[in-house]
């Protein structure tokens, strides 16, 4: 056994490699990106398995599903909102079943450090009726990933690993074991994998009949742990994942520890919960994310004769990330003594575009081009350029989800907004913008789409983009945008006046225009120079 310092994300990745991974796929997104970053590096060294960035999460999921169909082990990783994009194959893969072990790793972002919402992926696992592991630390992230592949193969459905930012982006030592060989090639049964209604009904029945067994498996998992305090029945704590760490942190000296049930697997291990609840008068549920366990305990009527506290009762905030302090307060312990905060509140320091960033030049030109257009609106998307929201640019009015800029601009234009401008990065365009542009081209909607081509996926650390340069221009032309209204500009201060002119011309054109602003991300150019 060797011990390595790994990010939580990396522990999952290494666990997958050691479980005999044949192929992993992903689309970048904080806090999940480092899973595939690690796999790509490891695959380059080992040359025995595939690790590839995909165009979006749905594509990544389907690629992984194909690997599983072929009897071999597959992993797909993404951030929480990525699972929305992949939700279609995700929900149905629970019906097809798997060939080789199929593990879906989803990293949630409670507190929205780098996300537009804080949805809890455990609900997706519950929705699809598949098992889910929730590691509390790095060792579990590694061990659970290995086990998840075995479980997936044994019960013949996909298995989810749910991470959260604090584990994904924290480092700790992990003891690793021997690598298992990869599976051989074996093809899926067409009756299981062809979800025609007649087949799908049978497959759904199988999934439903599997549920009692899944609960039993969860109840018997070595990762769950029930410790009853025979001397004190006043309080019992149910804590899942990283919340369990925060509970134990507050009893580090071991004194006055209440009964504690650690939940690490789903479906919720009912029997263990019943045993804890029977032992105590009051139950505190601490979980990172939405109150999944708490809600299932509460139901409509609560627990007769017992007190149940947690997020729903207001003892722990419903929004945001847990902390050792918020859990401590819910445990009824007084805060630790601490240094007084400074007399003035330190001014916030939001993230911002790098000095010399190409997006900055595009926004400066766009702001000028839109001057005097009182009803203009700029629909933006997800990437570094979302920082154009902040002064001195204050250039954008929306950011909702990957690709939303183009569709929203079309809708807004049809509702009477003029000029309607969409601003979208090259990779985001490939991810979810192409179909929306196809729709706008089909209707020749009066709008301007500005594709910011910085030749990389910048915000998440410079992963490869598939829709940059010449291919991007061909796609834009290919979906039906008239060639004379596809304009390429270089966002540099010396072309400022020229760029404003191009934008004004295309705003004036009563139909669809696409302006592609091409200049490489500075950060990536710098990294490239260093490598060369």
């Amino acid at each position, binding site marked *: 056994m060797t011990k390595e310092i790994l990010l939580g994300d990396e522990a999952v990745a290494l666990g997958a490699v050691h479980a005999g991974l044949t192929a992993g796929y992903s689309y970048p997104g904080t806090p999940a990106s480092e899973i595939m970053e690690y796999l790509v590096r490891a695959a380059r060294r080992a040359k025995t398995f595939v690790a590839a960035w995909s165009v979006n999460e749905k594509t990544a999921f389907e690629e992984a599903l194909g690997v599983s169909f072929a009897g071999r082990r597959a992993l797909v990783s993404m951030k929480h909102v990525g699972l929305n994009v992949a939700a279609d194959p995700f929900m149905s893969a629970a019906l097809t079943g798997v060939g080789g072990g199929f593990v879906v790793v989803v990293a949630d972002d409670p507190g929205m450090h*780098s996300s537009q919402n804080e949805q809890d992926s455990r609900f997706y696992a519950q929705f699809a009726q598949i098992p889910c592991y929730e590691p509390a630390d790095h060792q579990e992230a590694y061990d659970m990933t290995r086990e998840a592949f075995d479980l997936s193969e044994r019960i013949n459905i996909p298995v989810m690993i749910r991470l959260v930012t604090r*584990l994904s*982006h924290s*480092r700790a030592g992990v003891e690793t074991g021997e690598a298992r060989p990869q599976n051989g090639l074996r093809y899926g049964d067409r009756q299981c994998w062809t979800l025609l209604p007649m087949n799908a009904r049978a497959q759904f029945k199988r999934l439903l009949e599997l549920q009692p067994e899944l609960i039993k498996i969860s109840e018997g998992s070595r990762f769950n742990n029930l410790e009853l305090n025979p001397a004190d029945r006043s309080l019992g704590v149910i804590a899942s994942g990283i919340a369990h760490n925060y509970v134990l942190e507050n009893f580090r000296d071991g004194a006055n520890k209440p009964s504690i049930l650690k939940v690490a697997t789903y479906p919720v291990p009912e029997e263990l919960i019943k045993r804890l609840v029977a032992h105590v008068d009051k139950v505190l549920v601490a979980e990172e994310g939405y109150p999944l366990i708490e809600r299932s305990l509460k139901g409509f009527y609560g627990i007769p004769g017992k007190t149940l506290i947690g997020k729903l009762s207001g003892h722990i905030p419903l929004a945001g990330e847990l902390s*050792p302090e918020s859990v401590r307060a819910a445990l009824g312990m007084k805060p630790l003594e601490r240094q007084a905060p400074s007399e003035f509140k330190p001014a916030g320091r939001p993230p911002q575009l790098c000095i010399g960033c190409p997006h900055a030049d595009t926004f400066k030109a766009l702001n000028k081009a839109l001057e005097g257009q009182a009803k203009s609106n700029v629909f933006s998307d997800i990437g570094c350029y979302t920082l154009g929201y902040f002064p001195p640019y204050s250039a954008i009015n929306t950011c909702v989800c990957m690709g939303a800029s183009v569709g929203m601009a079309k809708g807004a234009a049809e509702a009477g907004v003029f000029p309607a401008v969409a601003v979208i990065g090259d990779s985001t365009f490939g991810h979810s913008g192409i179909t929306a542009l196809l729709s706008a081209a089909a209707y020749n909607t009066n709008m301007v789409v500005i594709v910011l081509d910085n030749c990389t996926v910048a915000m998440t650390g410079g992963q490869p983009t598939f829709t940059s340069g010449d291919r991007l221009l061909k796609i834009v032309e290919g979906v039906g945008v008239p060639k004379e209204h596809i304009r390429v500009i270089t966002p540099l201060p010396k072309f400022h006046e020229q760029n404003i002119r191009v934008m004004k011309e295309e705003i004036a054109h009563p139909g669809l225009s696409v302006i592609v602003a091409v200049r490489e991300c500075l950060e990536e150019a710098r990294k490239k120079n260093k490598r060369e």
Partner: protein
Amino acid sequence: MTTSRKQDIILAGVGGQGILSIAFVIDSAALKEGFNVKQAEVHGMAQRGGAVQSHLRLSKDRIYSDLIPRGEADLILSVEPLEALRYLDFLRPGGKLITSSTPFVNIPDYPDKDALIGQVRRVPGSVVIDSEALAKEAGTSKAQNTVMLGAAAKDLVVGEDGLREFIRVLFAPRGEKILESNLKAFELGRRAAL
């Protein structure tokens, strides 16, 4: 070097100042000395010129939380004075504050520098280092993070030789000149805090 079974450190600064590099040096050295290590860091959006911090926990015993509880930090080590103040309530009574005096001004409402340092001085035993001057003296203004690491050396639970070893591991691949500058920056910071 100080001796203790555990040390909780908040590393603070602005995205791009090299917080994670300092974290790497400290936790690699700590691991070699038999400490358990947990290091929570900030990736993604916030890294772009925003406030970043890392929670670094070293302990001979088991470490539970990835985050340091408010009131548990033994040390705040900051490469920027405003960022030093942002996390004051993490510091335990008697905990130490070591900060650079060099402001990183990228926001319009950045406070007056003297007022800032005044707030830092309210923390008993706080150490203020002119990291910019020392880094320039060492050969590169980019080495302010290493200056601050040097300034904290005598207050860390890991030995100075271990810190030097991993400064080498970190900077050797970037060339002899950068390595030398950083080793010098470490020494200048260390002496400034004596």
